[in-house]
C-alpha cells in the first residue's frame, strides 16, 4: 500500500500534481493570494464563530422537521456534488495528463481508479468541508459537540455523490458516447447550478402572499418524505444528528457505493479511456467535390472564428448556459407585459438586465475570438496589419452579440415605447463596442480550453472593465426610464474609463 505503485504512493503523486497545478495557477501573484486567503480565512472564521455559537444553543433534536430540513439541504448538496463530480470524471479522461503512462504501467487498473476517484471526491467535497470546518473548529469551545456528526456525514455524502456520478458517467458513456457525455455533463452541471439560482430568484418576482403559500406547499410536500425517521431517505440526516448506529450504516452505504461504483466503472474504464484518446481519429465523411473558397481577410477571419465556435459544442454551451440565469427575468417580463403591468421603472430594470446580458455574452465571445487564438504565429506572419485582424475578430464577436440584443430591442420598441427600444439599442451597442475594444486593447492570450480562466489579469483591468459595463447599463436604464439627460452622467463615466483603459494598453511587441 505504501510502496512504489501502492495506493498511497499514487495518492501522493496525485496530490503533488494537484498542489503544483494550484501553485502554478497563481504564479507571480503571491501577495495578492496571501491577502485573498487571509481575508477568506477571516470571513470564514468570523462567520463560523457566530454560526457555532448559535448552533451550540440549539439542541440537535432529530424531529421530523429538523430531519426534513437537513435532508433537504443534503439533497441540494448531493445534486450539486453529482454535477460537479460528473464533470470532473469526464474531464479526468479528457485531460489525460499521465493517464496513458499509468495505464501502460503494471499497476492494477482498480488502484489507479480508486486513487483518481478519491481525488475527485476530495475535490468535490473540499469546498463544503472548508465551509463546515469553519463552524466545527468553534463548536467544542461552545459545547456543541452533538453537532459534530455533521462533518463525517457530509464527507460521506461526497463519496456517495461521486459514486452516483460514476454510475451516471458509465451509463452515459454507454448510451451516448464519451464525447457527448462530456457535453451533457457540462450542460447538466450548469443546469443544476442554474436551477437553484433560478428557483431562488422566482419568488422575488412574485407577490408576497402567493410566495408564502408556494413556500408552504413545497415545505409541506418535502418534509414528511425526507424527514421520516423510519425511511432510508432520511439516513444521511439521521447520521448527521449522530443517532445510534446510523452514522455507521451511512458510512457503510456511502463507502460501499463508492467501492462498488469504482469496481463497475473499472470494468469499462480502459475501453472508455481508449475511446476518448481516439476521439480525434478520423471519421469517414462524405467527400465532397472541390468547392469554391472565400476571398478577403475579413470574410475568412470571421468565417474561421464562427466555424471554430460552432464546432465546439462544449465551449458554446459554456457561453450560452449563463444566459439561463436570465430566464426568470424573461418570464417575469413576459407576464408583466401580458398583464399590462409594465411600469417605466420596471422596463428600465429589464432594459439594464438585457444590456448586462449582451455585455457578458460579448465579453465571452470577444475573449475567444481576439485572445484565444490557436495559431498566433500564423496570423502574425500573414501580410495583414494587427489592426485589421483585431477589427475582423471583434466583428466576429460583436455581430452575434448584436443579434442577441435585437429581439429585446424590438420587443421594447413595440411593447414599451419606440424611444425605449432606441435607447436600449444605443446602450447595448455601446456596451458591446466597448467590450470588444477593451478585448483588443488588453488581450489576455490563452488557449480556448482556458475559457473559464479568461478573466484572469490585473485587478485594475477587471475593475475598469466592470465600471465601463456598469456605466452603460445604468445609462440605458436611466434613458429607458425617461431620464435621458441623467443617463449622460454614467455614459461619461464609461467613456472616461474607456479612455483610461485605452491609455493603459500595453505596447505591442511586433
Amino acid at each position, binding site marked *: 500500500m505504501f510502496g512504489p505503485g501502492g495506493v498511497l504512493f499514487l495518492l501522493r503523486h496525485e496530490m503533488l500534481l494537484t498542489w503544483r497545478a494550484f501553485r502554478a495557477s497563481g504564479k507571480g501573484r503571491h501577495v495578492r493570494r496571501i491577502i485573498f486567503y487571509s481575508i477568506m480565512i477571516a470571513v470564514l472564521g468570523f462567520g463560523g464563530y457566530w454560526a457555532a455559537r448559535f448552533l451550540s444553543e440549539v439542541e440537535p433534536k432529530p424531529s421530523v422537521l429538523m430531519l426534513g430540513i437537513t435532508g433537504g439541504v443534503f439533497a441540494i448538496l448531493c445534486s450539486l456534488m453529482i454535477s460537479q463530480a460528473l464533470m470532473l470524471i469526464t474531464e479526468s479522461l479528457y485531460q489525460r495528463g499521465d493517464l496513458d503512462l499509468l495505464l501502460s504501467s503494471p499497476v492494477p487498473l482498480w488502484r489507479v481508479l480508486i486513487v483518481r476517484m478519491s481525488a475527485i471526491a476530495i475535490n468535490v467535497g473540499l469546498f463544503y468541508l472548508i465551509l463546515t470546518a469553519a463552524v466545527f473548529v468553534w463548536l467544542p469551545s461552545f459545547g456543541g459537540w452533538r453537532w459534530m456528526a455533521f462533518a463525517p456525514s457530509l464527507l460521506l455524502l461526497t463519496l456517495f455523490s461521486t459514486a452516483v456520478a460514476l454510475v451516471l458517467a458509465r451509463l452515459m458513456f454507454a448510451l451516448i458516447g464519451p464525447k457527448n457525455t462530456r457535453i451533457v455533463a457540462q450542460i447538466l452541471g450548469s443546469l443544476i447550478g442554474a436551477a437553484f439560482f433560478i428557483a431562488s430568484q422566482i419568488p422575488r418576482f412574485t407577490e408576497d402572499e402567493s410566495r408564502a403559500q408556494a413556500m408552504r406547499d413545497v415545505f409541506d410536500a418535502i418534509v414528511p418524505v425526507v424527514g421520516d425517521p423510519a425511511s432510508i431517505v432520511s439516513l444521511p440526516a439521521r447520521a448527521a444528528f449522530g443517532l445510534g448506529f446510523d452514522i455507521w450504516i451511512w458510512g457503510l452505504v456511502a463507502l460501499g457505493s463508492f467501492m462498488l461504483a469504482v469496481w463497475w466503472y473499472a470494468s469499462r474504464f480502459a475501453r472508455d479511456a481508449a475511446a476518448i484518446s481516439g476521439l*480525434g*481519429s*478520423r*471519421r469517414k*465523411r*462524405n*467527400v*465532397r467535390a*472541390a*468547392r*469554391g*473558397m*472565400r*476571398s*478577403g*481577410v475579413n*470574410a*475568412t*477571419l470571421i*468565417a*474561421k472564428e464562427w*466555424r*471554430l465556435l460552432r*464546432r*465546439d459544442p462544449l465551449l458554446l454551451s459554456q457561453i450560452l448556459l449563463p444566459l439561463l440565469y436570465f430566464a426568470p427575468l424573461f418570464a417575469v417580463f413576459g407576464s408583466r407585459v401580458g398583464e399590462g403591468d409594465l411600469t417605466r421603472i420596471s422596463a428600465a430594470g429589464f432594459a439594464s438586465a438585457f444590456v448586462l446580458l449582451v455585455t457578458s455574452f460579448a465579453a465571452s465571445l470577444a475573449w475567444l475570438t481576439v485572445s484565444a487564438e*490557436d*495559431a498566433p*504565429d*500564423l*496570423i*502574425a*506572419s*500573414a*501580410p*495583414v*496589419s494587427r489592426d485589421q485582424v483585431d477589427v475582423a475578430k471583434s466583428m466576429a464577436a460583436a455581430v452575434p452579440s448584436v443579434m442577441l440584443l435585437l429581439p429585446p430591442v424590438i420587443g421594447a420598441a413595440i411593447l414599451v415605447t419606440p424611444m425605449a427600444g432606441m435607447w436600449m439599442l444605443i446602450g447595448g451597442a455601446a456596451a458591446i463596442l466597448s467590450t470588444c475594444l477593451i478585448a483588443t486593447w488588453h488581450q489576455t492570450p490563452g488557449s480556448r480550453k482556458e475559457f473559464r480562466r479568461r478573466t484572469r489579469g490585473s485587478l485594475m483591468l477587471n475593475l475598469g472593465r466592470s465600471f465601463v459595463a456598469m456605466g452603460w447599463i445604468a445609462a440605458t436604464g436611466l434613458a429607458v426610464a425617461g431620464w435621458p439627460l441623467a443617463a449622460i452622467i454614467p455614459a461619461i463615466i464609461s467613456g472616461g474609463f474607456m479612455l483610461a483603459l485605452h491609455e493603459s494598453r500595453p505596447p505591442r*511587441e*511586433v
Partner: protein
Amino acid sequence: MTNALSVRALTKKFGEKTAVDALDLDIRAGELYALLGPNGAGKTTTLRMVTGLLKPDSGTIHVFGADAIADPIAAKRMLAWLPDEPALYDKLTAWEYLEFIAGLWGVDAKTAAPRAEELLKFLGLWDNRDERTEGFSRGMKQKTALAGALIHDPKLLMLDEPLTGLDAAVARQVKDLLQERARSGGSVILTTHILDVAERVADRIGIIQGGKLLAEGTLAELRGRAGGASATLEDVYLQLVSGAA
C-alpha cells in the same frame, strides 16, 4: 540580381543572452539553403525575426529588396513560414484551413481553389480534405501546414525543422517538394538537425552557433575547409562547432 533574403548585422538579445549576434546572411533567389546549428544556436530566432514574429534589437532584413522591418506587410506577402510544430486549427478541415490562409494572404478565391486542389493531391491529402485536422497524424498535419505555406505561392519559403517526426515516406515527399520548389525558381531556407537532409537537398549550407555564422558554402566548399574531399558534412559540422565552442 536581388537576393531572396539579405540580413545585415542582425542582433537579438533575450535579457543578458545574445541569441543572434550581428548576423550577416544572404540567400540567393532560386536557392535551397540549409541553416545548421546546435540547439539554441539562434536558427529559429533568426527566422522568426525575418518573418516578423520577433522584433530585432538592431540590424536590417530585406526580403527580395523589401525592408522587412520598415514595411513588414510587403515582406510578409512574399514569405511563408512553417514552424516545427504545425499551427493548425483542430476544428477546421484541411480545405477550410487552406481557404483561411489564402484569405489572409489575399489570394483570390478563383486562384486559391485550384491551387489548393493541386497541393492536396500532390501531398496525398485530397481524400482527407473534408476531415477536421484534429484527427490527422503528425505527418498529415505537417503536410497540411506545408500546403498552407505554399497556397499563396511564396517567393521565399522558410521552414523550421520541417522533417522532425515525419516517417520516411512523408519526409521524402517533403524533400522532393522543396527541391522541386527551388528548381522552379523559388527560394527555400530550412533549419534542420538532420545533417543528412542538408547534405542531400541543400544548394548551400550555413553553420550557425552562438548567434554567429561560423561557415557557409556548398558541401564541397565546406569539405575543403575541413581539409578533405572525403570528409562528411558531419565531420565538417563537428569540427566547426567544437572549434568555436
